[in-house]
């Protein structure tokens, strides 16, 4: 299986080269945000306030890590279910977000927004918190510290393993792969 190395930030030209099914290793800075951070960002936008950072060409990782043990910089840090962020994601894609890392399928509205903004959605293996923690080299809280595990963190990753599951053309691995193995007649 071919593996594509990608570096963040990820501009449109490089996003468009990625195709559904590509196995990638991501290196560089990415940003953590999940339910509560997204909700707070949307509230900021509604009030006409700025977001805590510029997401242009950046990648959000949907994760709420465990606390770091002594001598570690972060605890287990696998992906959470992306679908809960569907309601918020198009707002961020319209502001330049390059892609998201999580698990599980996305809504049609998110996929349409991804296509119009040339964004990519990556999945990594859910539950693999210990293995993914190993790829994180630095951690800095940049916003909403009071949210604890749900704060926005800037994390540096090295060879973070993921799969392109929805590409800039809207090709969706959740739809295509399942068909190959479904034996509907059995049911």
């Amino acid at each position, binding site marked *: 299986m071919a593996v594509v190395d990608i570096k963040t930030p990820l501009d449109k030209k490089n996003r468009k080269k990625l195709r559904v099914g590509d196995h990638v290793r991501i290196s560089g800075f990415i940003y953590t945000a999940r339910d509560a951070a997204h909700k707070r960002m949307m509230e900021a936008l509604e009030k006409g306030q700025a977001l805590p950072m510029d997401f242009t060409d950046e990648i959000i990782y949907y994760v709420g890590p465990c606390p770091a043990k002594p001598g570690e910089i972060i605890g287990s840090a696998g992906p959470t279910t992306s679908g809960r962020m569907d309601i918020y994601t198009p707002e961020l894609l319209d502001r330049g977000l390059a892609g998201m890392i999580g698990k599980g399928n996305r809504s049609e509205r998110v996929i349409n927004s991804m296509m119009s903004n040339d964004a990519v959605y990556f999945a990594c293996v859910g*539950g693999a918190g210990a293995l993914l*923690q190993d790829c994180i080299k630095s951690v800095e809280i940049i916003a909403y510290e009071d949210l604890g595990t749900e704060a926005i963190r800037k994390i540096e990753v090295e060879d973070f393993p993921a799969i392109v599951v929805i590409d800039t053309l809207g090709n969706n691995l959740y739809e295509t792969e399942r068909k190959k193995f479904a034996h509907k007649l059995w049911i």
Partner: protein
Amino acid sequence: MKRIGIQQIIDHVAEMCIEANTFLSADMMEGLRRAKGSEESENGKEILETMLCNFEIAKNKNIPICQDTGMVVMFVTFGQDLVIAGGSLEEALQAGVAKGYEDGYLRKSVVADPFIRTNTGNNTPAVIHYQVVPGDGLKIKILPKGFGSENTSALKMLKPSDGMAGVKEFILQTVETGSPNACAPIVVGVGVGGTMEKAAIMAKEALSRPLGKHNPLEHIEALEDYLLEASNALGIGPMGLGGINTVLGVNVEVFPTHIAGLPVAVNISCYVNRHVEREL
């Protein structure tokens, strides 16, 4: 009369919370290894390999397998002749959870009010189900329940005329909708009968039955076999990216019910199906 002190309970519960989140039980490990052996999808095989590799890293570094260390569900079987010395059993169980989540660097994922959503800071309260039995024993079973899979669970009050076919359809629908988001290959706990809450509690406890151990009732064993094969024919596969291993096991429990009803609860667990049991 047998006595157990509350500190002993606190310490056991704390240890069990850490153990459940760091090491997966032998039956689950075996189920995943078997899945990797049989998987036909390339993505699926690689994902299962990553899952197995992650267990090793968690064990060696002594850190949680998954960052979602769950909301704790407990099944406590309490002998009516037992004396709890030094305080309240409920408070000791909750204090044990708080200690385990602090000492074990586990994620605190519980919010105090479902609308206001402020984190309680120590992962309590746990949801505790008690059963009082003859004797002087104390058995504590702990299931830290992650919510990626909990959110895909469902309950339906079917009609008696829906029968076996209706039950099968509802369970398969729940598996089909839920498993791509629930970190498949999943384990499916099912409770049929009783009342609404009885069905749900049976479904939860069914998740702690070891993989491969069937319900002793013949027609329920047949239902478990059917549901396992039918689920794996859906093609959803590991992490929903295609394959023949969507479900590792289906555990069904039944209970007498009302002449007018057929409650069915489906509780889904991710492949990190954590459960630890101790008899004190």
